[in-house]
């Protein structure tokens, strides 16, 4: 090997080894609520957002219920009980900097009037928040959420021409109250679980998507979540409705600055898919995982659920989970409509002391409903990676079909990989199959690659990407690339 190429290789390695590159903090004037959670805070959040009475009632009902619940600790992740009084439940770039438009003026929100610091942050993250400027280049509409508020939603006019509603959740509450009222809590009721109840009470912002009948969204819709302030929680609420014969592909990305205390992220996503409609929901989750011991990372407690309401509808969840100190996430499909299809493709990578407990639920109710689950778990360092999934076939689900494959790969001998599937079959015509394997990167595989001049690091990267291929091929192109790069970065230094 010549000296030049050797040098090149070292450089490449060094440039890759930069760890969590999204870990910067944005200095801007913000308005943050005092720490603590009580009824006054819930009312204040609602007042801040200028919400109608029904929304406040929903929050208060959820809050009352939340107080009666206990924090769940059944997941295979160890964490101290959280002090909910030690978080702030609302934080937003100060409105005095940009006039009063961020809560009231829905129509102009796409105009680039956001705080320049915030804009810089999104630029650094590579998120195109200025619709006009990038409309030529990018084929994607973005809703950018900074702590508790949505700061920009691009391309909404283009979409509006097709009848697609793509706006922040707060705006939807103002502008489309009948739609929000109809669907809010219809898939994930406020009493569903502890974190869903908390979210219903203090929901910050999120995205609202409505695809009208017969419309195929020509571009991908996406939301980028950014937690910036310390000791705040983000409680996004996303609702996605696909009417008859419609189609949409929705992407979601996230990141947070490096902190030394745990931050809370408790989101709720509700997806409603009507007859013949199809929704593709992709997530690349890259929350800050914390330091070497995962101190200060994001606690990601998310409830995502979709219902295939109509016949022949299809909902597909794809996720690449690489961040967060603790992940507690089970994107689920309720297959109500006959012939409806649910899919779940997941790559979950844990390194250092990260703990991920993730999987899915497939509830088969309608006839000939089909579901596919492909889950790839990678654990490295001292992490624990768990697949936990439920496949439930109810007596009405005549001819239902499920295929599940959970593969785990262990990298190093300090980590754990676990599989906890729950299978409940109540219809004899249903066919379900479940397979799970656990393995590691073989020394012989590594040797084979190295012998052919591929460095150890690249060889691992290659093998891991091959292991995840089935899932990555489901992600939209740019996302797939990003996910592959994320894997490489997150795996850095885990072997050897």
């Amino acid at each position, binding site marked *: 090997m010549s000296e030049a190429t050797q040098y090149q290789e070292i450089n490449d390695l060094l440039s890759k080894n930069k760890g969590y590159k999204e870990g910067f903090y944005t200095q801007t004037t913000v308005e943050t609520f005092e720490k603590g959670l009580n009824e006054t805070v819930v009312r204040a959040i609602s007042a801040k957002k200028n919400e109608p009475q029904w929304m406040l009632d929903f929050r208060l009902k959820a809050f009352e219920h939340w107080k009666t619940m206990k924090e769940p600790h*059944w997941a295979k992740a160890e964490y101290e009980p959280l002090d909910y009084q030690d978080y702030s439940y609302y934080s937003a770039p100060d409105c005095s900097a940009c006039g009063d438009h961020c809560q009231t003026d829905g129509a102009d929100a796409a105009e680039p009037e956001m705080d320049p610091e915030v804009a810089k942050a999104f630029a650094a993250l590579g998120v195109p928040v200025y619709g006009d400027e990038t409309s030529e280049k990018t084929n994607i509409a973005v809703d950018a959420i900074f702590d508790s508020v949505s700061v920009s939603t691009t391309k909404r006019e283009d979409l509006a021409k097709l009848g697609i509603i793509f706006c922040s959740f707060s705006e939807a509450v103002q502008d489309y109250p009948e739609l929000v009222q109809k669907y809010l809590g219809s898939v994930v009721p406020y009493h569903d679980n502890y974190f869903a109840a908390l979210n219903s009470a203090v929901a910050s912002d999120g995205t609202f998507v409505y695809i009208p009948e017969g419309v195929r969204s020509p571009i991908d819709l996406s939301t980028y979540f950014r937690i910036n302030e310390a000791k705040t929680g983000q409680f996004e609420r996303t609702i996605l409705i696909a009417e008859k014969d419609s189609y949409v592909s929705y992407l979601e990305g996230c990141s947070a600055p490096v902190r030394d205390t745990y931050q809370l992220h408790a989101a709720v996503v509700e997806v409603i898919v009507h007859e013949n409609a199809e929704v593709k929901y992709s997530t690349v989750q890259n929350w800050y995982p914390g330091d070497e011991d995962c101190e200060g990372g994001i606690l990601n407690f998310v409830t995502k659920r979709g219902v295939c309401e109509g016949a022949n509808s299809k909902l597909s969840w794809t996720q690449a989970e690489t961040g967060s100190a603790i992940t507690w996430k089970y994107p689920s499909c309720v297959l109500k409509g006959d012939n409806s299809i649910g899919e779940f493709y997941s790559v979950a990578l844990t390194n250092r002391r990260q703990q991920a407990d993730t999987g899915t639920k497939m509830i088969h109710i309608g006839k000939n409903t089909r579901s596919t689950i492909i889950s790839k778990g990678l654990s490295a360092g001292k992490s624990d990676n768990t697949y936990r999934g439920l496949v439930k076939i109810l*007596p009405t689900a005549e001819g239902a079909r499920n295929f599940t494959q959970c593969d*785990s790969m*262990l*990298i*190093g*001998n*300090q*980590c*754990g*990989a*676990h*599989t*906890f*599937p*729950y*299978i*409940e*079959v*109540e*219809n*004899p*015509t*249903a*066919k*379900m*199959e*479940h*397979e*799970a*394997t*656990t*393995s*590691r990167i073989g020394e012989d595989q590594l040797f084979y690659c190295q012998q052919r001049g591929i460095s150890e690091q690249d060889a691992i990267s290659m093998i891991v990407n091959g292991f995840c291929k089935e899932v990555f091929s489901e992600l939209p192109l740019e996302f797939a690339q990003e996910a592959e790069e994320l894997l490489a970065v997150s795996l850095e230094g885990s072997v050897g």
Partner: protein
Amino acid sequence: MTLAATPKMSPAARQLLDQLVAESQKLNEQTEAEALIEKRQAAQEKILSQGLPTRKDEDWQYTALMPLFKHTFEVKSAKSVTLTEIQPFLPELDAIRLTFIDGVFSEELSAGFDFIPEALSIEMADADAIQSINLAEQADAFQLMNEMLLDQGLTLSLEKGQALQVPLHILHVQTQSEQLINLRTQIDLAENSEMMLIQQFVSLDDGQSALVNDLVKVTVADNARFKQIVLQDMNADSFYFANQFFEQAASSVIETNYVGLGCEISRHQNYLMMLGEHAESMQNSIGLGTGKQVIDSRTSTTHQAAHCDSRQLHKLVLDDQSRGVFNGMIHVVKGAQKTDGQMDNKNLLLSKTAKVDAKPQLEIYADDVKCSHGCASGQIDEQQVFYAQARGIRKADALQLITRAFLLEPLESVSNLALRNWLTEIISRKLAKQ
């Protein structure tokens, strides 16, 4: 004794628990040994503070115990039974046969004493010679029940280098209604020894419900081989709960097969610890549910040492409104490298109202391992039936043929042909009856 701390339970469950504790107290009154009294009391306290399981307990989510709570079980003295009455249950093979009527050993109904070598010791031991179960952890209610009702236990030990030439057959006959049968067995196999054990549970008559609570502890030393068949074929009104604890040392072999045919609710749980390197284990089960039966088969396998192999095959066939439960866990601890663990569960549903719940789990902390599990549920393939029909086999026969072949697969590991045939016949008989 304080009852204040008792957790939430239905009034029926409460009643049964109180009554079982009273049974335990009755035993205590007849006992002089202080240590034993204390042992029972410790278990009483624990079970009272824990309560009987409800559907909210993760381990009992799929196994509802409501039908059990309708009963009041008592320890009763054994009725007399003649040899002709038990003859139909016996296999035609040479064996050392130990017969127990309602949990009490009957010498006249036992046979094959000539086969007992000097190296094998069989004893009905007093409770103080029996190891207690570990109460420190969150113990299973039926284990605690077994401990608090412990009176006598059967101990079997086989000396070093000795192989038992014929199987040891333990027959448990249940004869009375509302009978509580609390069994404890402790088996020790010394190095290089070999034993084949058959445990058979039967009811003399239909309609008489009994509660069998069996706790078995097996220790298998280096290079020893232990094979076991548990055949549970009691009447459809009885209840069976078994907890088997296995510990195996280096290069030893354990093979255990469970055949669950009877009982309203039955639950068979294995806890297997692979403590020495190069140990091998095989755990299979067959369950055939009809009527409203609940058949629950569970395993928990811990790979504590490196280079161990574990194999499992669990098959359930469920008809009518029966319910099948499989729960398996393979646990590989840190450092147990080169582990090879495999767990398969396959279920066949024959009726619209039958249900199956499965939870095949893996918990792995070592990287150089090969572990997998598979689980499948479905109904009989129409094409297979058509294939058989095309060859002149009537549909009903074809269905039975396919079901039988499906269900009997785990028995292929039983090397004793006479034994395998006997089991095949018993299972086929139940299949033909439905």
